[in-house]
């Protein structure tokens, strides 16, 4: 099967296909709940002039963040909204990718970069400014941006 590359680390492409399918089935529901249209967490300038290594590292940090700060806390809400199945698919596939990348990181296959760390901190600051439920909904509604950034890491 084809794979997509994070730096020198690769992940099965089929996972990305499942992620897109899962997100497309929750997109309308989740984005419709986000009335703070004047705030975008995953901002375009994060990727502007970013090297592939930076994109990889930023994706890695964001995946980690989403799993420990968004998916964990949104499970009950996802059930209420009737989107638990695709939501769980998203979470499980994010976890599979993260596990893979953690292995690569431990083997030094992609480096941390200061500038992507700074961008990640900007994301975190913006995230914490919002009230708890709003930020979870907004972060989940921006998974298409994160998946597009992961596609960019695909070579």
């Amino acid at each position, binding site marked *: 099967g084809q794979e997509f590359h994070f730096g020198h680390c690769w992940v099965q*492409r089929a996972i*990305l*296909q499942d992620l*897109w*399918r899962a*997100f*497309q089935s929750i997109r*309308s529901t989740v*984005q*419709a709940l*986000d009335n703070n*249209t*004047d*705030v*975008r967490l995953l*901002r*375009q300038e994060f990727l502007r002039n970013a090297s592939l290594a930076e994109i990889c590292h930023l994706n890695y940090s964001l995946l980690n963040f989403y799993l420990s700060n968004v998916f964990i806390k949104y499970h009950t809400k996802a059930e209420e909204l009737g989107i638990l199945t695709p939501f769980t698919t998203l979470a499980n596939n994010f976890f599979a990718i993260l596990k893979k990348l953690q292995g690569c990181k431990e083997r030094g296959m992609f480096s941390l970069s200061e500038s992507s760390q700074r961008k990640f901190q900007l994301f975190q600051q913006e995230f914490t400014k919002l009230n708890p439920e709003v930020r979870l909904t907004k972060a989940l*509604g921006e998974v*298409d*941006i994160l*998946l*597009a950034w992961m*596609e960019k890491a*695909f070579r």
Partner: protein
Amino acid sequence: APCISSGLPKPINVTFSSVNMKNVLQWNSPEGLRGTDVVYTVQYLIYGQKRWLNKSECRNINRTSCDLSYETYDHEEQYYGRVKVIWGKHCSKWAETERFNPWLETQIGPPVVALTPGEKSISVVLTAPEKWKRNAENNSVSMHQIYPTLKYNVSIHNTKANKKWYKFVTNHTLEFPQLESDTLYCISVQAYVQGPLRKAKASDNQCITTLKDQTSELKVK
């Protein structure tokens, strides 16, 4: 003077229709006001920015669509569109689209298809569709640049034997060998991108006849 926001019904089915990043806001007039001389006003918002922006060419219009391609040209941004009804001094509330992501939602148009017949083969050259251009002088941006994993699904139909088959290709040239000579074949091509499900438009059928078999011609003489 600003209109009075009264109980006028809002426009319905407000959506973006997008092909090769030509992004058109479209809507239906509200049930109760069909046939009356209402007009519409459009605004758009770049997701993450504070202010709704006017589209001057779509202020007080009576058609039910507005081309926002210029305003939504950056396909890495996301957008909202909204429209309201104006009737005399009164106006409806705004009716909004869902969040629009051009990169994710645009329909990929058909490639340009050039066919060259041989005796028992047809060569096909494909040119990826182009992104909508802000003005004619601008350099073209191929949809292939935006979607590096752009592929083609080429179908070929032998009209004599009424047989059809497909080829999935990544590069833009291919050949169909082992065809029948002096036979009409029709070819249609659809571009597609791996990843999220995207609509794609197939090219119209293009038909061409393979050349006559020269060897059998010589025998006849």
